């Protein structure tokens, strides 16, 4: 699991049959120092994460399989919307 910031939305032209009606978001992985990863990620979201919010991403496909069936290729899902992150040793308590 890791934290990511929601940066936008994806409109699919075609998608796997199991993912009909899914919401796809563009996100950037967040490091502890607040920097972002070099490549954007596409997440599946049913929590209603807003643009700019920080979310917890799970890379385990089990929760997606439970929801979309055994044949779904879905993997990265928004597992929660972050209320607050506190990393005392970095002296940087950030709020989402």
């Amino acid at each position: 699991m890791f934290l990511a910031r929601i940066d936008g939305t994806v409109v699919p032209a075609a998608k796997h049959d199991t993912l009909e009606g899914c919401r796809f978001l563009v996100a950037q992985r967040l490091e502890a120092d607040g920097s972002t990863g070099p490549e954007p990620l596409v997440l599946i979201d049913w929590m209603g994460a807003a643009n700019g919010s920080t979310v917890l991403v799970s890379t385990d496909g089990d929760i997606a399989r439970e929801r979309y069936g055994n044949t779904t290729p879905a993997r990265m899902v928004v597992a929660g919307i972050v209320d607050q992150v506190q990393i005392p040793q970095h002296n940087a308590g950030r709020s989402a």
Partner: protein
Amino acid sequence: MRLGIVLGHVTLSPAVPELLGKTLVVLEPVTMKNLVAKNGLGGGKSLVAVDALGAAKGQMVAFTEGTEAANPYWPNRVPVDAYCTLIVDSITTGNPQNQEAEVAK
């Protein structure tokens, strides 16, 4: 899932039976810099993925990596670790008002 640009296709002869009949595409992962620049370029280290959606050269796709990439063939076991899950029509990043990234189809 990461985003990738379809650079081309791969055919195998011979191949393990589990891969026969599957379309393989060469993908170049898209960096945030190129996504925001809307230049249709990738920038990452290329890889090969299975594509069952019919993505054409130059199109942007989102691909799943890892064991989940083999899920569409469940309960069969296939040596697939990257799978094109969706073809991108458009992506909006940053301020939705002025950044509508229309991806080349």
